[in-house]
């Protein structure tokens, strides 16, 4: 079925639309409608679990327990009891504080390693190739869980904040990515800076860094997310130091405790509510920030790939 073509002035502005169908046939319209419906369904599925939890967090604990299925609005008497308990609980607050420490700390330390490593690997030197291979090898191969644990224990880091700040702060991939980013800075800019008398450090901060930061931003965002969501490392390195636990580990603990609370003869329903409020409190900051760094994130991911 030949499509009718009718390019108007309005259409030709958008390259994708140029030559596109102005008066689509019925089948085209139906297909387009189906596509939109499917996309809306996907968006719905992405969003609804969070909505469900949000509604649950405002509900009445006892009614919630008995409820089956999806929540569209809070059940029972809407209450803030869940949230009140969350903020009263010292362990949750300490978890939040710890997570912030780990996020900021690990990302900063990680970026120092990434930037220094990536920069050096991007400059010409006799050791460049061996060093690059050394870093690349760590991406392919590693000692594994237990040997790493033993090294960290030998260093005396287990049971301290350091075990969560330093060991996992970065990996070979990120250093290599920064190397690519620095390599992408045009040589001429660097040369002209050198001619103007800038030393290594000056060049690094004022010339190279700004131009390499699109990939750098992706790395930072990824590290932040990783650290915010991490729980496993804490569970093996600071198992018994509850004052050092990050938020996610507390969530895991509270959720596990709640599973068995139902057996208890006199269950505290607001405790049940806490788990929902907790999820919201732990997840909302990132979700709200999402639209703001979404552009940067996309540009960085795309830019990094195109550079190759």
């Amino acid at each position, binding site marked *: 079925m030949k499509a009718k073509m009718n390019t108007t002035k309005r259409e030709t502005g958008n390259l994708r639309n140029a*030559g596109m169908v102005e008066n689509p046939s019925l089948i085209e319209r139906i297909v387009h409608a189906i596509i939109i419906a499917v996309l809306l369904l996907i968006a719905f599925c992405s*969003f609804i679990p969070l909505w469900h939890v949000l509604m649950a967090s405002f509900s009445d604990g006892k009614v919630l327990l008995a409820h089956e299925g999806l929540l569209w609005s809070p059940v029972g008497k809407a209450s803030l009891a869940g949230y009140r308990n969350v903020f009263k609980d010292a362990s949750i607050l300490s978890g939040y504080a710890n997570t912030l420490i780990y996020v900021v700390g690990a990302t900063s330390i990680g970026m120092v390693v990434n930037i220094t490593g990536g920069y050096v690997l991007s400059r*010409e030197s006799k050791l460049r190739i061996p060093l690059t291979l050394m870093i690349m090898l760590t991406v392919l191969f590693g000692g594994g*869980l237990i040997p790493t644990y*033993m090294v960290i224990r030998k260093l005396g880091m287990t049971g301290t904040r350091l075990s969560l700040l330093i060991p996992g702060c970065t990996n070979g991939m990120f250093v290599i990515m920064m190397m690519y980013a620095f390599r992408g800075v045009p040589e001429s800019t660097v040369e002209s800076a050198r001619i103007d008398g800038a030393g*290594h450090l000056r060049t690094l901060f004022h010339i190279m860094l700004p131009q390499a930061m699109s990939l750098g931003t992706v790395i930072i965002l990824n590290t932040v997310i990783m650290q915010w969501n991490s729980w496993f490392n804490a569970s093996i390195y600071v198992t018994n130091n509850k004052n050092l636990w990050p938020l996610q580990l507390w969530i895991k603990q509270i959720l596990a405790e709640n599973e068995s609370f139902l057996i208890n003869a006199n269950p505290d329903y607001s405790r049940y509510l806490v788990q929902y409020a907790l999820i919201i409190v732990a997840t909302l900051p990132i979700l709200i920030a*999402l639209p703001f760094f979404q552009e940067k994130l996309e540009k960085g991911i795309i830019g990094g790939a195109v550079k190759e």
Partner: protein
Amino acid sequence: MKAKTGKGTSAEKVKPYIHKVTWRQDFTRNKALYFVMLPCLIYFIIFNYIPMFGILMAFEDFSVTKGFFGSKWVGFDNFRTLFTGEAFLTALRNTVCMALLNLTIGFVMPIVFAFLISEIRTKKFKRSLQTVSYMPYFIAAVVVVQLVKEFIGTDGAITAVLTLFGLPKQNWLANPNIPVFWLINCLTDVWQGMGYGSIMYVAAMSQVSGDYHEAAVLDGANRWQRVTKITLPCIMPTIIMLFTLRIGLVFVTGFDKVLLMYMPTTYVTSDVLSTYTYRMAFGVGTPNYGLSAASGLFQSVVGMALLLISNKLSKKVTDKTVF
């Protein structure tokens, strides 16, 4: 001034710099550079290279008190126990099956989503759809698993829908039958990764020249034909590159969620190599570090082999490689 020859045989790739400069010259010129490299170098040596010696544990009957050099050397015994043990073989089978699901459904869904999204012209609508689709990616594993438990538990919303279709009402996460857990894991990954994973593909698709589409419409091609004959071939390099990366990583990732979702009653379908390795060292009962290290080593070796093989394959198919 003597000129030293550079390392390696790939003379064409190595810039003339290495041939022209001696070690001493290089050091005087670049000592600031090497100094700057120290933090990075120290980090990787301590946390990546030194643990590699731990591989020795895989060949020993390791006991914590005796340490690396005091424990009895048993050669490949640990591996023999590993490959004849039922738990390991089950874990291996599960890992392979989940990996296959990951490489098929898990890989294709973001691409399908990218195709759908690319058909939307209205910028605002497209933007908001993308933002919503990215959200699940940023939710912590602990929370995601809790959501899964909430929705497919006995009282869950998804369970209710499945019951409507005639399936028995139950806590699906506790179901040890094939392929329940595998599907749960795969679909959870899809839920989380579909939006974020589509970014690359959407970008690649937007780079396909509008001229091709214009010409196609002129020749009477419908939407499906345009997708399969124009867009798809154009983004093939991107697809291959990402598929290559995924194959290499599929054996070693996906640990978090499985660890949180599995339970002893479902080990027969839910235990994977990573969780097996973990359990041998950190689980209940006496830890068997030698077995755990052997399992971990096996994973690393297979993962590396897969990465190198898929790298070679990708070179054959598209001339592009990741490494």
